């Protein structure tokens, strides 16, 4: 389709793309395409949290040109599949919204570590808010990331033994060495 950003797959204009295929082989291909598309879309829009009901109407799951949309249960299935590979995390057990990690927490953790290393901030204590919303991190991919997601990424660093997370009043701080 003309005018669409290139991260939109060809299949976006294929009506059966918006119907869950009963054939197992077809469905696995279709699912892979949906996964890639959801991640690419979220990355392009810097979308960290996907509220399924809201997303339903968004261009992600609705192609207005051909008047097709992916039904909610199928969206859930796609996100479930993403969650299985740590690319997504349900915010609550009712599965109404999910954090989308368009990079895996491991990748984000490595990026944060590299950033702190590059900017010589190892050993200093930073609040999480500084990391996600600070003026210095606007160019970073994780800029604007939601707190719970960041905590999860930092947990990876903690596990690696290079960081420590502690509470400072209401806020949380992190120290990387």
């Amino acid at each position: 389709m003309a005018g669409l950003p290139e991260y939109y797959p060809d299949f976006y204009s294929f009506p059966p793309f918006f119907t869950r295929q009963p054939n197992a082989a077809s469905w696995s291909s279709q699912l892979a395409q949906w996964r890639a598309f959801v991640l690419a879309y979220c990355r392009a829009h810097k979308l960290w949290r996907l509220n399924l009901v809201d997303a339903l109407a968004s261009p992600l799951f609705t192609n207005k040109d051909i008047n097709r949309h992916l039904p909610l249960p199928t969206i859930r299935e796609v996100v479930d599949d993403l969650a299985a590979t740590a690319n997504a995390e349900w915010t609550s057990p009712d599965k109404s919204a999910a954090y989308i990690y368009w990079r895996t927490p491991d990748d984000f953790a490595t990026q944060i570590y590299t950033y702190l290393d590059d900017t010589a901030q190892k050993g200093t204590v930073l609040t999480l808010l500084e990391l996600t919303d600070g003026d210095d991190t606007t160019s970073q991919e994780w800029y604007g990331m939601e707190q719970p997601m960041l905590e999860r990424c930092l947990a990876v660093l903690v596990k690696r033994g290079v960081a420590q997370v502690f509470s400072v009043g209401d806020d949380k701080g992190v120290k990387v060495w």
Partner: protein
Amino acid sequence: MAFRKLDLTPALRPLLLPNEALLFVQDAVGLYEGRYKVPNHQNGSAYLTTHRICFVNNDESRKYSAALDLKDVERYDLYNGFLKSSPKITLYMRPSDAPLGSEYRSASRSPNCTPVQTPPRSSTPLQSLSVNRQWICPICTFPNPFPSNFGPSAPIPPCLTCGVKPNRSVLEGAMNSPAPATRPPSKEPYSDSSLLQVGIHKSKNACPRCTFINDQALRNCEICGEILSVDDADDSLASGGSISRTESPSPAYIGSIPSGEQIDSVKLSFRGGGEKPFMEKLKGAMVQRKWLLEQAPTIPTITAGAANLTLDTRDGDLATSNAPETTERVVGVRGLERQSRNLRMNNERAIAGAFEDLEALMSRAKEIIALAESFATQLSDNPSLANSDAKQALSNSAALLALRPTDFSVTKDQISSSSSSTSLYHAELARSIADFLADDRRSILKKEGGAITLVDLWAIYNRARGIELISPSDLENAAKLFDKLQLPVRLRQFKSGLLVVQERNKTDEKVAKSVLVWLDSLSEVEPWELKTNKRWGRSILARDAAENFGWSIAVATEELEMVEERGGLCREVGVEGVRWWKNPWNSN
């Protein structure tokens, strides 16, 4: 031998002749010629029809099948079986060189008995009596039945009462002499004793053995129990009127066949039982002699009416000649009106008469069929009936009116009630359904695109039968046997459970391929839905496929789902139902 080549239907049933009807089927039957088993004809089904006995072997049916014309069968016997030997029905064949209806065969071994040409008799009760030849035990004088297999080498049976084996000469004497059981041909020289007997017979109803003079009304001798002759008109006619018959006549050839000579008989060995009902039906068929009906003239009143029936309404002149009651010759419009009224009245009378009772219907079946056909041709000629659907419906109903005894109907009473009866019934039903579907005149499967749901089949098949309807469960059971019987159709169950009967050669693969080819050909046409990308091709609804392939909607849906299952199609659920697209995920 008397066997003829048997043509089989695609479903390996005997192909019935016109006017031939199936009477009975029995499986697990073996075939004997004389005393010997016929190789490769030992495990098959015996079909009794009004005209023939057909044998179809279970394996290699096309190669090993045979038919026997009932008109060649002179008489038949039932042997009940003993220990390991199965019950058998023996059919004694009419010698092929003898004229039809002749009961006699020249006795080649009795030199004093010159062959005499007896007038042929078309119907006679003699056949059943012919086994009544007896030999008298010299010890106890008990009249023993003559052994049917008697010959120089055959063992001599002991007397049934005293158990003493007689001299061979006793049997030979009984065989060669014009025994009391034999009707002497008119010019045959008589022995003294027989002359004596004849003399006695002339006066009273004397016993041929003990010479006791019995009362005229008695059938058996009061003293010795011997069967007394029965006077009937046939006797005097056959024997030239001079000699009254002493006893049931026996065809001379039974005992007199030399052992070396080929016995013209065929045995059906009923290994799975069922010989009794078969025998009953055979008796019925032999008595009815349906094969003679072909030539028989129809009832005159009907033939007279039949001329009217097939008349075209526009043929005015003939109508007048067929309405002799209109003595007054009327011309003009009024005359024409009267003619057509007369014709209508005639037709009405014929139909009303035919439906009066079933008997009449059967006897008038031919005329009614002719009438129905003439209606049908009139319909097709009539330009005012432009609506083809209506025309077809009418001609269909006309065809139904024909009520022809379908070759397709198998009823439970035609099937042996022996142990495996239900499965045999279903097997025969399966065969008849396969024939019904394969029938070129109807070409039902073709019209239905090669697949028909079991429900539709049930309706159509029962409608074709007209009477003796079958139950759905019988149909299902029969359809399940298609594979086992290797019939040209098969039963297929779709994922949803829908049962469909289709041609055997229509495999899923072929259907899938044809659907995809069709889709491709559609896509080459200019894309009608401009909004969709051209690369996805065109989509179809189940309805489109149904139209294109002649399927019913249910079948089309199932077939498309089958293709989807195989990865050829993918679906899109929209407001108008499920649309089907070529599956782009399949290749990668």
